[in-house]
């Protein structure tokens, strides 16, 4: 009997665990290690952040699901990987520290035959002084953060009702952030809420981002075919900002967040301040802090992990200029090159480079989005690696691995712009492929037939449908596997 250890129970790790259990039944042991007791459908945190959903509607406890599926769940965080074992253990193993309230701080080791690193990101609020709920701004990265943001927003709405003018700044809190789509969503959900509550005229809503242009969204922008014309996501997004009266500050790196004042640098090197009454600024991501050791105890963290803390997989990490970036740079199997029984999926794998064009200010500050790899691609990666491990268990080490390169994968992104079954709205976007391929698709690098964007009520219905479908799937209810990632 083999043991498969999965570090992380987010979209990619949880998907991998469920597919492994379904394929392997109880013939092999599946262990999930996650410091969190709950699963969170993160895309709906936006709605928690404006008070339209409660925390309990976007989270559920993992333990009962894993008990029902005979998956061993350890509420703990992994602190080190020993891929070669050590002097007394021939198998690879991980060191874990329990976060389970019944044994908090207890240490243990877990040997493995296969390891999936799906730890997601560390929310790196520390990269910007004053950033985050423990500083001077809010976040919607977790359900708890979103709840705090909703409470703060309610206070602002009360002040607006009293006739006070307020400035609300929503965006990203560092020049290297990703997830601009989430900041976009929260901006328009807040704007929608202010209108619904009749206080929009007293509020100045500002979107603050590291994107070079609106509509970049960390994927270098998109070109859509609409009404016989090729339209850019830039123009399309600018139109929405004009229609909804939202200001934008782009090409910005937030340097510091003081109480009521954001300090930021622009791409031209100039420095500015922006006063605010409410700020929701997403943090940059880095890999979770995990060490790696060779059999003799040597520290091999730098060999296993990239400098940003994410796991190196089968990508081409050679440094090259933007013009030479190629779809082949992106990983296909998510297998660690040095240890073929270790895989990295979701946000935890180290991307070879960004998707948007990299830019630096004259002061040397990087101001360009990191590549998004959440949601649908994360789920597909989790399933792909699970199937590869199943193949290896059934057919031995030479079994062909499954592939899921982001250069050969499309994505759908539903960016909510307000809730309500009759009054809701969302920008519904599809793109293929995620990584532009200008050899296959000259010009934009994406298939114009498969890349589309539209705004309307139906986008909101779709986002709501996905909310219920993916929570159903994550709860592993009847027929869950029929719902594609």
């Amino acid at each position, binding site marked *: 009997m083999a043991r498969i250890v999965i570090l992380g129970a987010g979209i990619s790790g949880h998907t991998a665990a469920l597919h492994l259990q379904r394929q392997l039944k109880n013939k092999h042991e599946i262990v999930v290690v996650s410091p969190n007791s709950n699963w969170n459908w993160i895309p709906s945190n936006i709605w928690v952040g404006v008070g339209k959903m409660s925390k309990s509607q976007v989270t559920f406890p993992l333990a009962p699901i894993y008990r029902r599926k005979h998956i061993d769940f350890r509420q703990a965080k992994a602190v080190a990987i020993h891929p070669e074992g050590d002097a007394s253990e021939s198998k690879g193993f991980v060191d874990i520290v329990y976060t389970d309230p019944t044994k908090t701080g207890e240490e243990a080791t877990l040997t493995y035959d296969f390891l999936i690193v799906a730890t997601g990101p560390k929310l790196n609020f520390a990269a910007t002084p004053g950033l985050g709920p423990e500083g001077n701004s809010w976040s919607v990265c977790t359900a708890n953060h979103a709840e705090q943001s909703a409470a703060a927003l309610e206070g602002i709405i009360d002040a607006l009702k009293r006739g006070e003018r307020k400035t609300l700044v929503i965006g990203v809190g560092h020049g290297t952030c990703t997830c601009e789509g989430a900041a976009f969503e929260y901006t328009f959900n807040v704007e929608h809420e202010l209108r619904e509550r009749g206080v929009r005229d007293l509020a100045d809503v500002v979107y603050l981002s590291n994107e070079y242009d*609106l509509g970049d969204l960390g994927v270098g922008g998109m070109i859509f075919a609409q009404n016989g014309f090729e339209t850019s996501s*830039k*123009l399309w997004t*600018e*139109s929405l*900002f*004009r*229609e909804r009266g939202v*200001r*934008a*500050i*782009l*090409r910005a790196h937030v340097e510091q967040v003081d109480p009521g004042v954001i300090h930021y640098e*622009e*791409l*031209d090197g*100039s420095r*500015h301040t922006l006063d605010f009454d409410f700020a929701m600024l997403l943090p940059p991501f880095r890999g979770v802090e995990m060490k790696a050791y060779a059999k003799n105890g040597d520290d091999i963290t730098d060999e296993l992990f990239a400098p940003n803390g994410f796991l190196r997989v089968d990508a081409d990490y050679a440094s090259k200029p933007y013009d030479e970036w190629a779809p082949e740079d992106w990983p296909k199997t998510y297998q660690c090159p040095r240890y073929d029984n270790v895989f990295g999926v979701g946000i935890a794998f180290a991307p070879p480079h960004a998707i948007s064009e990299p830019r630096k200010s004259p002061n040397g500050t990087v101001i360009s989005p990191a590549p998004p790899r959440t949601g*649908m691609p994360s789920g*597909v990666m989790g*399933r*792909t690696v699970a199937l590869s491990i199943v193949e290896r268990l059934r057919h031995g080490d030479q079994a062909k691995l*499954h*592939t*899921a390169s982001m250069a050969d*994968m*499309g*994505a*759908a992104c539903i960016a909510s712009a307000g809730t309500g079954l*009759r*009054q809701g*709205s969302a920008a*519904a976007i*599809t793109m*293929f492929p995620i990584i532009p391929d200008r050899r296959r698709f000259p010009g934009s690098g994406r298939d114009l037939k*498969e890349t*589309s964007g*539209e*705004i*309307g*009520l*139906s*986008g909101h*219905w*779709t986002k709501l*449908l996905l909310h219920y479908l993916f929570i159903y799937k994550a709860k592993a209810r009847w027929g869950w596997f029929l719902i*594609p*990632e």
Partner: protein
Amino acid sequence: MESMSEVDRNIAEAPLPTKGTLRRRKSLGYQMTRFVAFNFRMLKMVTRAHH
């Protein structure tokens, strides 16, 4: 402030949706057809992503 004014100018010059477009974005009948069309497109894309 140069880039900020450029962004402001781009937003100010962006096309606004017509009344007809705004109506269609909220029209239940029209949006139902868009809902079906978009979900079909998404399903096709998802199916293509599963090797």
